[in-house]
């Protein structure tokens, strides 16, 4: 397995270079360094001297991909792309164009994102699996039909509706929880209840339908018939056999998501005033802050690759028949 992981890591290098290349090309196609300087300087009258000084300080005065003024290998190495990519591969994110330390910002903002995303993920998974099992237990009944209708309805309504409806109902009308805000530590629990509940609820439709279909597929297999023939009651059949075997596709499907959880949720964090990473990239794009954009795209890519590797590894853990080579 070690050789497999090393190979996957090596495969990741050209992928990340490619992602970087696209990020640089797209960003500078839309924003010139002069535009970025104007946006960052924020002055009513931006003079050429101000722009030149700003670009020079941040290295944006260098050519993007090819330095025709340099000679030999420096034509490629003495460019913005190469210089910045090397720093990214060393996980040196440096400063945002506005002058803040990016790694310090990410470290500070990832915890609030995780405070929402992790419980939402775990509770959502548990709830959806529980409801799916219940529905499978009562398959073909009114409960099954009603739950499926409800699931489709939940899926069909925008997440924004749940957020606003939740805020109006639970905070504005019933005054149970703060409408938005965030506090670290135990005092912060009351701020997390509503976004987590809404997050769990909004994701239930998809989860229930997916897990139900997985469990139903298992229910029709021969070993389940054998288990019933042995005289096991339905609950034991569900928990000992259906759930255990159904978990393989479920877990492999969700493991890929785990590393990206800390990237946060843009809408949820905006509406609930959670100072997480959800809006970090979008705000940076709007502010034309390339320092943050390139760092976040790079981290996102690394996490996604990490998620895929973890998924492969999880196959070997949950299904002994699978061997990585």
């Amino acid at each position, binding site marked *: 397995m070690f050789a497999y992981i090393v190979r996957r890591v090596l495969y990741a290098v050209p992928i990340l270079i490619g992602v970087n290349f696209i990020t640089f090309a797209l960003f500078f196609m839309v924003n010139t360094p002069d535009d970025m300087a104007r946006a960052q300087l924020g002055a009513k*009258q931006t003079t*050429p001297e101000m722009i030149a000084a700003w670009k020079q300080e941040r290295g944006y005065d260098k050519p993007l991909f090819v330095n025709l003024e340099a000679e030999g290998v420096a034509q490629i190495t003495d460019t913005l792309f190469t210089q910045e990519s090397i720093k990214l591969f060393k996980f040196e994110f440096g400063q945002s164009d506005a*002058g803040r330390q990016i790694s310090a910002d990410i470290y500070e903002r990832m915890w609030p994102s995780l405070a929402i995303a992790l419980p939402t993920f775990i509770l959502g998974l548990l709830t959806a699996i529980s409801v799916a099992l219940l529905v499978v237990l009562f398959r073909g009944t009114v409960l099954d039909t009603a739950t499926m209708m409800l699931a489709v309805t939940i899926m069909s309504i925008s997440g924004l509706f749940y957020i606003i409806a939740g805020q109006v109902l639970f905070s504005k009308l019933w005054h*149970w929880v703060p*409408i938005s805000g965030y506090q670290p530590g135990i005092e912060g629990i009351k701020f997390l*209840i509503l976004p987590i509940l809404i997050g769990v609820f909004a994701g239930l439709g998809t989860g229930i339908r997916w897990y139900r279909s997985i469990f139903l597929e298992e229910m029709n297999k021969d070993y389940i018939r054998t288990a019933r023939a042995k005289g096991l009651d339905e609950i034991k059949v569900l928990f000992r056999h259906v759930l255990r075997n159904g978990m393989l596709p479920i877990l492999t499907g969700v493991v890929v998501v785990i590393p990206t959880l800390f990237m946060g949720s843009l809408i949820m964090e905006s509406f609930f005033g959670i100072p997480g990473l959800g809006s970090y990239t979008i705000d940076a794009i709007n502010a034309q802050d390339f320092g943050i954009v390139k760092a976040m795209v790079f981290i996102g890519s690394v996490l996604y690759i990490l998620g895929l590797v973890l998924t492969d590894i999880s196959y070997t853990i949950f299904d002994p028949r699978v061997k990585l080579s």
Partner: protein
Amino acid sequence: MELQSRMASAVLRQKTDISDTGRSNTGTDVFGVVVLFALLSFMLNVSPASADWNNPYPASISSGKTLYSTFSSPPKHLDPVVSYNSNEWSFLSQIYEPPLQYHYFKRPYALQPLTLDQMPEIFYLANDGHSLDQSEQANAAYTEYHFHLKQDVRFQPHPAFAKQGEQFRYHSLSEEDLLEIESINDFQFTASRNLRAEDYVYAIKRMALRQNHSPILDTMKQYIVGLDEFSDEVTNAYQQLLQDAGATVKNRYFDLNAYPIDGVKVYSDFHFSIRIRGVYPQFLYWLTMNFFAPIPWEADKFYKQQVLVERNITLDTSPVGTGPFYLAENNPNQVMKLKKNPNFHAEYFPQDGLPEDADPTLLNDAGKQLPLIDEAVYTLEKESVPLWNKFLQGYYDASGVSSESFDQAVSVSGGGDMSLTPQMQQKGIQFINAIQPTIFYFGFNMADPVVGGYSEKQQKLRQAISIAINYEEYISIFLNGRGIAAQGPIPPGIFGFDQKRFNAYVYEEKEARVQRKTIEMAKKLLAEAGYPDGKQSDGTPLKLFYDTAATGPDSQSQLNWYRKQFAKLGIELVIRATDYNRFQSKVRGAKVQLFSWGWNADYPDPENFLFLLYGGNAAIHTNGAGINSANYDNPEFNQLFQQMKRLPNGEERLKIVQQMVEIARKDSPWVWGFHPKALALYHSWLQNVWPNPLANNTLKYRNLDVQQRSDKQLEWNKPVLWPIGLVLLLLVVSVYPLVRGYEKRQQAKIRVSKKGVAH
């Protein structure tokens, strides 16, 4: 202990509720409900009686004279020499003190000393340096301002000043020293010192250092004697130092004290002077801005340490000021907290200057020492729904009014007068409504061969369009009536604005009322311009191009509205929507025909608006750097501008300003657009609210009735408990049929018939 008693009370209360209403049948169910409710109460850390489950603030800051407000976007720069953003200034201006400030109440706006003993002494000098009389001031080669500081002004307690013996305690920090340090407020030792004249001079020197990216450096270089040469010298020297040391501007201190500026002199700890070229009365207004706030060199040196930079502890994130407040928490993505500066000097609530028609209770705190509150907590609110609801719940002391909540908050009478809705009045909410010193205009590119030019025909084309674009309608539709149509470039409240003088090229007086000219009159002008019914000489409709950066779905209705205004004249308006970068680039390069833009006053002087039309500032003449985006260049206007700029406010100046406005109205380089009105709501417990859009340091005047706020919050936020019972009841009730259904299914038996078929 308190928590236990709260939980017990919650449990008891819930038990009673349930037995009274008969919602539970068995002791087990009741127990389950009670446990769940107790768990919920524990999670919320409160009992129903405390009635603040939805309080968004920790108990530690919910009491005391704390003002709660919001900010809409994270501040990027808190370095006073860099920041030029109203969001950032709403914090900075409470912390830093430039030499002058605006009087809180007086209108027209009046300057007064802030850290000075008196207003600056002004000397007019000839070329050889000898002093001139007041009467000769118009011919002065230089103006010299002398500043005498108050002697009781001290900086906030700060680790940069802390000493151990003769050495600064924290000026050579190592990684080990910072193990427990996460913010500037975590340092064990702090100290302070008196404000000195050299601190103001040091701020000007920091401004001159190109690496600090001060947005006003190039403007000030035109005025402050020696600043240009000084800037080149220190910028180059610093650049060399950085190269030699392989350092960055963030982590390498540069000793600016070693370099003098010709025009800026320190005479003593409390006296300094600034010499500027020529006569520029507006210079005093610049001295109310944070660019001129004092910076102690100790702080600059302290913050240029790599270990602090790595933790985002810099002068750009952690200000050091002499103002009424200091920044106690800087979390730009969540909350900013200001606390009362224990070293704040003696400053008192104004006792005079309140206009006669204003509410006299605004002087209730007259003569009291400032600031009147202990703390201000600003929360980041990006969305209008949570902001508005928290304001209605009493958790914010004031709020703006978004278009979504406008109808809920404000009623507009047929005459356009605004008042609060009964719902707001019932809550005791009050509002202020003030016209901003701002203009949003619709510009013509005067260098364009079709819409530009200065011939009578070209003037008439622009005048016709000015009549057709009905800004009264625009204000009513898109701004909920929050604005007034502009009559010229100068907004109300600024010297030179005269409510009685309307734009006679667009409006006319009928039955003692000033009203927009009819569309027929506009069509007549258009025909005289050579476009009868909006048609060109070849009979095709005149087609004009409007560049805009408004590309979102919300903008479509506004763009359609503009199309309709032009269609009234038979002109086809083609919208060229693009992103803001491209839009700016096109305007700078004079590659647009029509465009919209706005301007917010830096200071209350007509020069700050008329320079938008001065030919010397035309984008086309300044390689895109000029602020005159319409490229208006009328020699007569330009000459009057130069005259007006040097004059103090008075009859002579007023006459020239009015003359300039009249010239601009006739040429119509802009459709004058509108001046927006700011509408703010505030609760009855917030006191001394007075609109002063040019003063940013007004937090020190605010006062609060904390008891009233606390009572209202409790009254407005009592938790509604019945839905919890209902949900739990539904859960309990729904379990029964499920259990029965399962048992039934388990007991089902397969009957096998004789033919072997299962039933």
